[in-house]
């Protein structure tokens, strides 16, 4: 057939050839051929010719152009160019352009996005990446402030399209894009949750590519976590909102409802339910590969972590705050069918997840040994940090053999890590979760393996606190808060109460400790912030028996001049509460106050004086704290009077105070002690006989030294006129007056002693040189007289003193005789001095005697 056909063709050809050869074409000269029938008319007729400019040469002044001189319109056109390099360059150009001219983006944003969205499903990887960068860095931040709803809806359709793309790369990238959208416009998740979750489910089902493309999967999963974290349920979220609310200024303000917060989520529960088994399966698929690897690489760890986080979030959403994996009976309020589903998911979780999970820490343990040798410690710490939050929940769930293994690992981490690190903080929060008994208020019993570890943790806390010092206030605060919580729960029925009690023996270094005699080493407490100090002080309240050991250490702290006086008063306040709750022994309590009053270092106003008295005081602490001390005295007095039976307290205090007074403390402290006595005393004095004698000795001794009287204060005569100074004098004298008022006998004794002291000192000149003696003597006389005058000024005391006329007259007589003696012996200098005094004195004594006679 084929041959015959070819032959027939040949014949035809020959016939044609022959015909052409013999055909004669005749042409006439000068005549044109007619145009062929299909010829085109090329003539152009126009009135004007317009030539469009070429783009390169065109005038673009005033227009926004990119680096390469292209306008927005041109760039947008180029984004759909068939060459991928051109597309990429166009995107780069857009980025460049928008960065230079942000206004351009704002005015054309819809046009821009309509063009850009086509590139979401681009085949070229580089183009997609560039687009992602463009959106992330320029477009979204630029359009942040205005209404994003329509803007986002323009994009989302294309994103979903890309999510169902054939190429896996494109799909994964689409998730990344969606993540970006959610990041900038969170409500978009609730709007499209249904579709997104469906897509996630689909992609997670296809597990063949997990192991190849972990980086992509990781980013996609991170997006899922972000989406799911928008579900309304998170416990932590509630906490943070609480904190925000505390700062709210208007209490009953109208609150805007967040749009579509929880309303839109009811429809997606089913989707979420489907998602969980997929996630669990996915996690399981990861597991064998991880198991075979000697070292967990960062990417697969991240993936696994994200999966776990997602599961946690979903389950949290169902449980609305009920912990992950709690028995299904507690989730059952959602209705019967959901209850069944919850049951299945619980068993799923329990069987698969928890069967698998406990291997993880052991993995990490083995890894720990590896990484220690390989200096990969930083990486390891990061991993552990992410794992820690899961531990408390796990401990609740897993079987006991795993539990002890887990706890051992955890304790090892806790003890091993650096006190300042964030790992320690994470450990602490995990410990708090495990230590503080939860809502059901069930304490672990001693047989539980957990209990042993809990004790270990508690014992480590004070050491940690001291180790932290004052350099890491936030960490210290966390520890102190944990201690406080522990104290609040540690009542007598709790197994921790003994541990908490014992803690006071290790806490003393936190406050202060006596290194050598009198040498005090201050702990970190003094330099901590006010919040932390408050927490520490509150923790003191919960010791059911606050012993003298810790009290002593606190007292040293209180005496430290660096401590703010507000904190000092707060300590007293809390200790008083603790005392009234029966947590402090009365003897310890009283001796605490006595220590405060007798040891408090008062820095008077007068600087020169202060430096004379306390040469060891640094020059920068020159601000007077006398006011503080006065307040302290008042507070202590009110605390002591609130103890209860005043007379009993007085009996206890009397001897203590006298002992302190005989040690000759500084004037301020002595005065404070006397004030305490006066506050607890009543009108017919409660002082014992012995007490009166001791006190009289002391008071007159005071006069003798010249310290209880205003004359001790330098430059007395000049300043005496100043009202403030007089007030101080009165402040010092007032307790004495009260005592005199209540016990006339005391006054008599004191007057007698004053008189005898003058004679004594005047009749024993042998030890001193003559001039010295004269000065001393005149000083003493001066002191005695001014004391008498002060008593005289006070109307109440004047009445009392009038009943002791003889004693006063006796004193005056002695003074007179001394005056005479001086004049006779006739030392010119001393004589002059004495004369001025005598003049002064006679004037005063006349007044006194006058009033006495009157």
């Amino acid at each position, binding site marked *: 057939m084929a041959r015959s056909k070819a032959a027939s063709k040949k014949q035809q050809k020959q016939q044609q050839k022959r015909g052409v050869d013999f055909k004669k074409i005749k042409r006439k000269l000068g005549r044109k051929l007619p145009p062929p029938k299909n010829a085109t008319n090329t003539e152009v007729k126009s009135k004007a010719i317009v030539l469009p400019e070429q783009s390169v040469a065109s005038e673009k002044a005033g227009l926004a152009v990119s680096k390469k001189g292209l306008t927005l319109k041109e760039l947008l056109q180029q984004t759909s160019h068939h060459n991928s390099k051109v597309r990429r360059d166009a995107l780069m150009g857009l980025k460049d352009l928008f960065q230079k001219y942000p206004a351009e983006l704002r005015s054309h944003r819809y046009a821009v996005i309509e063009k850009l969205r086509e590139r979401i499903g681009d085949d070229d990887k580089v183009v997609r990446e560039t687009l992602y960068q463009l959106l992330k860095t320029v477009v979204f931040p630029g359009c942040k402030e205005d209404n994003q709803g329509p803007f986002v809806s323009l994009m989302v359709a294309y994103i979903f399209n890309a999510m169902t793309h054939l190429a896996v790369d494109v799909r994964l990238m689409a998730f990344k894009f969606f993540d970006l959208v959610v990041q900038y416009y969170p409500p978009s998740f609730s709007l499209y949750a249904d579709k997104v979750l469906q897509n996630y489910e689909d992609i997670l089902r296809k597990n063949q590519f997990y192991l190849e493309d972990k980086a992509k999967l990781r980013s996609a999963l991170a997006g899922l976590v972000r989406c799911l974290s928008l579900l309304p349920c998170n416990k932590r979220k509630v906490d943070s909102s609480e904190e925000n609310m505390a700062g*709210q200024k208007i209490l009953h303000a109208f609150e805007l409802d967040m749009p579509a917060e929880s309303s839109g989520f009811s429809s997606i529960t089913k989707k979420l339910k489907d998602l969980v088994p997929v996630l669990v399966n996915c996690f399981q698929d990861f597991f064998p590969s991880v198991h075979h690897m000697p070292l967990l690489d960062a990417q697969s760890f991240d993936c696994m972590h994200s999966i776990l986080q997602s599961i946690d979030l979903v389950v949290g959403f169902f449980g609305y705050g009920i912990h992950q994996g709690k028995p299904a009976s507690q989730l059952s309020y959602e209705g019967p069918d959901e209850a069944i589903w919850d049951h299945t998911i619980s068993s799923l979780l329990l069987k698969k997840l928890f069967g698998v999970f406990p291997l993880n820490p052991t993995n990490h343990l083995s890894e720990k040994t590896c990484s220690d040798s390989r200096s990969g410690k930083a990486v390891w710490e990061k991993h552990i940090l992410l794992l820690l939050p899961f531990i408390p929940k796990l401990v609740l769930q897993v079987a006991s053999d795993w539990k002890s293994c887990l706890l051992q690992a955890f304790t090892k981490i806790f003890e091993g890590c650096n006190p300042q690190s964030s790992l320690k903080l994470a450990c602490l929060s995990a410990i708090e979760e495990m230590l503080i008994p939860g809502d059901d208020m069930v304490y672990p019993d001693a047989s539980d393996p957990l209990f042993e570890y809990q004790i270990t943790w508690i014992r480590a806390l004070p050491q940690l606190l001291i180790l932290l010092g004052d350099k890491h206030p936030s960490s210290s605060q966390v520890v102190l808060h944990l201690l406080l919580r522990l104290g609040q729960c540690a009542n007598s029925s709790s197994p921790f109460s003994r541990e908490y009690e014992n803690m006071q023996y290790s806490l003393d270094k936190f406050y202060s400790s006596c290194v050598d005699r009198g040498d005090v080493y201050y702990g970190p407490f003094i330099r901590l912030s006010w919040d932390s100090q408050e927490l520490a002080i509150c923790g003191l*309240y919960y010791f059911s028996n606050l012993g003298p050991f810790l009290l002593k250490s606190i007292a040293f702290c209180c005496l430290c001049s660096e401590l703010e006086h507000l904190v000092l008063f707060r300590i007293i306040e809390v200790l008083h509460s603790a005392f009234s709750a029966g947590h402090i022994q009365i003897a310890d309590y009283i001796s605490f106050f006595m220590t405060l009053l007798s040891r408090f270092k008062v820095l008077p106003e007068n600087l020169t004086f202060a430096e004379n008295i306390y040469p060891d005081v640094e020059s920068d602490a020159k601000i007077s704290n006398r006011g503080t001390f006065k307040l302290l005295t008042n507070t202590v007095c009110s605390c002591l009077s609130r103890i209860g039976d005043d007379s009993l307290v007085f009996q206890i205090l009397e001897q203590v105070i006298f002992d302190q007074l005989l040690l000759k403390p500084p004037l301020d402290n002595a005065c404070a002690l006397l004030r305490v006595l006066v506050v607890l005393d009543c009108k017919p004095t409660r002082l014992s006989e012995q007490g009166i004698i001791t006190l009289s000795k002391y008071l007159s001794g005071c006069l003798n030294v010249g310290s209880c009287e205003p004359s001790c204060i330098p430059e007395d005569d000049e300043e005496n006129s100043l009202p403030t100074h007089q007030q101080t004098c009165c402040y010092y004298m007032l307790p004495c007056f009260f005592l005199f008022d209540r016990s006339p006998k005391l006054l008599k004794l004191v007057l007698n002693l004053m008189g005898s002291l003058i004679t004594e000192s005047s009749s024993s000149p042998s030890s001193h040189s003559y001039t010295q003696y004269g000065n001393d003597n005149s000083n003493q006389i001066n002191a005695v007289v001014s004391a008498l005058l002060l008593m005289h000024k006070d109307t109440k005391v004047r009445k009392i003193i009038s009943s002791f006329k003889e004693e006063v007259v006796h004193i005056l007589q002695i003074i007179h005789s001394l005056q005479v003696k001086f004049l006779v012996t006739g030392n010119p200098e001393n004589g002059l001095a004495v004369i001025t005094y005598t003049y002064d004195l006679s004037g005063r004594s006349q007044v006194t005697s006058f009033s006495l006679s009157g």
Partner: protein
Amino acid sequence: MELLIASSSVADAGIGCWDLESGAEQLRYKSCASPPHGLACVGQRFLASSQLREQPSASSGSILYWSWSKPQVEVKSLPAEPIKPIAANSHGTYIAGGGQSGDIYMWEVASGRLLKKWHAHYRAVTCLVFSQDGSFLISGSEDGCVRIWSLLTVFEECESQRASHLYLHSFTGHTLRITDIVIGYGGVSATIVSASEDRTCKVWSLLKGRLLRNIVFPSVIDAIALDPAEHVFYAGSRDGSIYIAALNAESPSTSSYGMHIIGSLSDHSKAVTCLAYSTGDLLISGSEDGMVRVWDPITHNIVRMFRLAKGPVNNILVVRRPLYLNLGSFSNPHTSSRRHGSQLPPPLDKYVTSADEDVDNKGVIRLPSLYNAPRDASYISHRTIDNHLKELQQQGSSAATEMEVERLKHECNRTLQMVQQWKKMYENLHEFCVNELLDGDQVDGSKRNAV
């Protein structure tokens, strides 16, 4: 119309009772040494107070009842452990008590039965407050925790088993002992203010269950009272002044006391230990020096002062004077004691009775009809209701038989009528037939005759 009632921790002071309008002292009820928040007026029928232990060795405290008309203690109950704070709901059907171990006890007043006891706090309960409608109980504890209990959840057994915790909310913001709690009006959306030894007062929202405001005071606040309009609250502090803190508007931050504190009432006395607000726009404060001061909150002046005791005043209540308690009964306690003699309910139980017993013991509370009606008749045991029910059932069945009889009678009548009808028809037919026969015969005869 209002009585001011104050008690002290000193036993010989007793419970003082004054007419708030006239200032006249009424009866003084003897031998009461109450702890803070340990005095309650139960449904305006009688006074109840928990007692401090006389000596620390005594294992248990007691709760005492006084009737209005007699100064002596009438009923003494001995709970299982020392009770400090007590509270009664506004109708006086329940008394709640907080124990040293952190347990809360709930008694039914009329029967004295311990309805429920539950572990509420880690440490001793320091104050208890019922909400205005009596549906919530708010407790504060030594461990600084404030918890809100919905009585519905507490008593519904299935409900309480299902939830992981009994309480509705648990506020752990305070670091030290709770000293006082007040709750405003508004049912579920009420505002709660709590004071603590940590020098703060915190405002909580019952509805949202979260902190609304934290106010730091210059000293420890031991007592708070809420302004009826809830614009401000008054906080009595240990330094002797009563601070006024804003609840709604933003206060000027220039206040010398601190954020949100508008001003203070002060007369430089000792620490303020308790506060109450009367409907006559008076603020009443009790102080550690044993005085009760009545303030005009607008002018910040003291209107009246009453002296209760040497020791600190612990509790102040403002109650409406019961109508049936006229002044005459105070002046003549003997007759009235005879009249009102044995009207107080029985003492409170020590332990929860077992479940099978309380099937029969359930109380029925009738709504209060009138104020002057004797209240103690309002308790009827569950049995009465059972009897009523039985009777009702029986009455119902006899009525049914009556109806049956009626029906039968009716039927009988109808059948009788039928019989009559049938008889009549038969007779008619018979007559007709006879007539026919007779006529026929006659016709035949006449024919025959004719033939």
